[in-house]
């Protein structure tokens, strides 16, 4: 599966749950490629913008869609990596924000081992 195929597979599934992809398709395809790279590396699609440990139990909260997607989209209008966005960002009424890391640093440190 390549980035485009993953995009076409996920888009309808996530739209049905009320989660919209970033309208910047080039960026989305880059993120899809990052997810596929992590799937190859670790066996699961860890967030492409976070450092995964490779241990699923320690990375569970940042396996895409991550635990922080909903609160980030609600508060900022996008998830951390910018894959999922609010309707306002999707429709161009709000620019894509820079989202600060919501994940507790302790989890990132624990994953470092």
């Amino acid at each position, binding site marked *: 599966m390549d980035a485009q195929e993953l995009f076409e597979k996920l888009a309808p599934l996530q739209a049905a749950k009320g989660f919209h992809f970033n309208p910047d398709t080039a960026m989305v395809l880059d993120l899809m490629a990052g*997810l596929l790279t992590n799937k190859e590396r670790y066996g699961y699609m860890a967030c492409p913008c976070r450092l995964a440990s490779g241990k699923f139990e320690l990375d569970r909260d940042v396996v895409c869609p991550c635990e922080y997607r909903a609160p980030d989209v609600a508060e900022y209008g996008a998830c951390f990596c910018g894959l999922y966005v609010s309707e306002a960002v999707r429709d161009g009424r709000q620019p894509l924000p820079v989202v600060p890391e919501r994940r507790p640093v302790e989890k990132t440190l624990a994953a470092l081992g």
Partner: protein
Amino acid sequence: MSADIKVYALSTCVHCKHAKEFLEEKHIPYDCVHVDYLTGEERTKIMDIVRKLNPALSFPTIVIGDKVIVGFRRDELLTMLESCGK
């Protein structure tokens, strides 16, 4: 003049990619460390450095001289580059 810009990045992260493209567009030299390519002690050592710069341990972490920018913040990066004459 050695590049005094350091980008701590992940090879899979689109924001990191955009930050590097931004610097390249402006022909500004920088050093990049792809932390996801590092393993073991080397990764731990670099993460210790990143943590001192950016307690959230997120990427990109961009260092310009003694200043740190967390995330790809285009305007902030532009202002900082201009203020140090880049």
